[in-house]
């Protein structure tokens, strides 16, 4: 036997081995009785830290659902992967539906990736629950029948902080200078901020776009000082906010800083003594409801630290999905969409229940402004944020902060 033919024999053997490794589990999988959900979230890059919390929260919900007997007696299996970037996210989403047997898609934090996944969902007529993406355009111009949005949209974040700023007389006639993340989310947030300033006689005197991989903010801070504003305003995302806050404290600029987006993990990373100002959040571990307390306790026991808002939102999202499947006794996307569109109410561990608004698929829920506790009052390194009262207030409609039909160009 010549070495050449031996090589081809080996190649053939390898090919067969490879094919069986790939092929057999697929057949086995197709026969399994589990309900499979495809989940994508950024685990690397500037949103990676948030994605890690997201998966932690998701897994706790999955365990609890399965321990309680699953859905219609079937166990739940959530396949979770790093979405990496918008293009990869779309490819993975398509593969999860086509090959891995996912019945619905969930996840995301990046608005750019959520957009591409929502297009995949629409093409395949499958439900996508977009959990942590906040751009208005996702539930506005780019909305579709198959996508539901759990996190609060940018307009709500701006209005939640805006209410606190109006109360403190920090808007009317004041000069604002903003720093904006240079991708769809930041642009969208800036648009919402501009609308707020225009409506309340705030004066935006400068705005700088900041690439998502910027770590050194010193040239921007020099520009801020040269512009001499009354208030500095952050429309940044992920790691960017942490770096800005740290360097803002480092340079000791005298202007108050406010921001329309800050996740608790990024605030924790900035650390006590660096953070100041008023910021919005969708949830915080100090929220005083039995549901939130139980979740915080389970999470802390498991991971040795309190959950972040993305851990909470993934937890309640999977619970909502499971509840919808149980109540409709179906995993069919059309049935589930109809159920959510009936504005069914869900316990989201807050004082008030949440429901998806039928015409733009946005979850209606409370939001909260937060600021920073005076130094020395924090019990531990996760405790330096002072949570404000829920907005809208107890007597108000949940819809007052959300974009109205006139403002939101969503048509399905």
């Amino acid at each position, binding site marked *: 036997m010549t070495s050449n033919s031996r090589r081809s024999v080996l190649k053939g053997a390898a090919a067969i081995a490879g094919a069986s490794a790939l092929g057999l589990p697929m057949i086995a999988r197709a026969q399994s009785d589990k309900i499979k959900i495809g989940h994508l979230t950024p685990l690397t890059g500037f949103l990676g830290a948030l994605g890690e919390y997201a998966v932690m929260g998701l897994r706790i919900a999955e365990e609890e659902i399965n321990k309680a007997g699953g859905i219609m007696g079937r166990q739940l299996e959530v396949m979770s992967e790093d979405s990496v970037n918008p293009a990869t996210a779309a490819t993975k989403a398509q593969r999860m539906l086509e090959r891995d047997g996912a019945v619905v898609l969930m996840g995301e934090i990046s608005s750019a990736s959520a957009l591409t996944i929502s297009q995949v969902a629409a093409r395949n007529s499958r439900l996508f629950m977009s959990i942590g993406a906040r751009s208005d355009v996702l539930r506005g111009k780019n909305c579709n029948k198959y996508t539901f949005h759990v996190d609060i949209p940018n307009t709500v974040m701006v209005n939640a902080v805006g209410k606190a700023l109006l109360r403190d007389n920090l808007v009317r006639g004041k000069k604002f200078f903003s720093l904006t993340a240079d991708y769809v989310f930041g642009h969208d947030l800036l648009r919402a901020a501009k609308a707020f300033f225009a409506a309340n006689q705030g004066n935006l005197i400068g705005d700088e776009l900041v690439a998502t991989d910027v770590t050194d903010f010193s040239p*921007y801070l020099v520009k801020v000082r040269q512009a001499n504003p009354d208030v500095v305003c952050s429309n940044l995302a992920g790691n960017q906010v942490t770096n800005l806050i740290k360097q803002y404290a*480092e340079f*000791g600029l005298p202007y108050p800083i406010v921001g329309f987006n800050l996740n608790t993990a990024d605030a924790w990373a900035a650390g006590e003594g*660096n953070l100041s100002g008023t910021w919005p959040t969708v949830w915080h571990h100090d929220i005083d409801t039995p549901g939130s307390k139980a979740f915080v306790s389970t999470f802390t026991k498991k991971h040795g630290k309190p959950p972040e808002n993305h851990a909470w939102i993934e937890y309640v999202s999977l619970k909502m999905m499971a509840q919808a499947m149980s109540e409709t006794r179906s995993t069919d996307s059309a049935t589930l969409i109809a159920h959510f569109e009936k504005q069914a109410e869900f316990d989201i561990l807050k004082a008030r229940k949440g429901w998806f608004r039928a015409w733009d698929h946005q979850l209606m829920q409370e939001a909260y402004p937060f600021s920073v506790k005076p130094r020395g009052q924090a019990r531990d390194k996760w405790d330096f944020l002072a949570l404000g009262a829920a907005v809208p207030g107890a007597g108000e409609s949940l819809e007052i902060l959300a974009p109205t039909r006139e403002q939101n160009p969503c048509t399905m």
Partner: protein
Amino acid sequence: MFLLEQVVNGLVLGGYYLLIALGLSLIFSVGGVVNLAHGAFYALGAYASVEIAKHLGFGSAVILSPVAVAMLGILFERFILRRFYTADPILSLLVTFGLAMVAEQSIRVIWGAAPLSASMPDALRGPVILGNFLFSRYRLTLLAIVAVVLLGVWLLLHKTSFGRVVRAGIQRPDMVAALGIRLQPYMTTIVMLGVGMAALGGALFAPITGVHPAMGAEIITVAFVVVVIGGLGSFWGVVLAALLVGVVRGVTIHYVAAAGEASIYILMFLVLLFRPRGLLGERIEKFE
């Protein structure tokens, strides 16, 4: 006036790039290896400093963390890098790139993906206004440390017999060998030094940027650009390039903020177009 302030700020920033790029350049010049794992040592320096600062305070962390990482650098040179000095460059690129990924994932496994918080001593916090220019007190301190390190490295390379051998080794390794001098112990020291400087950069920058797993990947690109612009084998080339990159970025942000990060690559492109060996790069036979 406003522009001048950006130039001055850029010079300060350049000092920090220098800390990372100088080691990268030295390892490249002497060993002929592009150490893509250099950023990993920067990240390790930052993580180690956070751990040490918890027990011994910030000052000790800034000294001990680079020393610890430099020790790691000895192992890195002795067991990995050494095998690739004479090999095809693609092999060393692959192995150091792989190492960088292994290091990043290891950090993620040990410390988690969530960024750690590191704080600076209160005494170093706050602004310094000099002639109406804004400086951060912390960065001025950082710049002073960089200047001391730089002076030390320059003296080591130009005023000691160690430095003479290293410089000769860059130009004519065969001749050095013919004179009966083994370059390997020198290379170990160079890697230790370079890696230690990267770790010092990590420790110093931990309080002002996020300490997170991908921080090494973020810095390696800029450091590499600085090395390419400065040119191989030239101490002052790296210094000049680091300052230039800091200034160009600052000035670009002054005019078109969104193009700030792109500007340094455009600068590299232009330099390579007109001076393929970099600004002050020497003609080195083994790389021609």
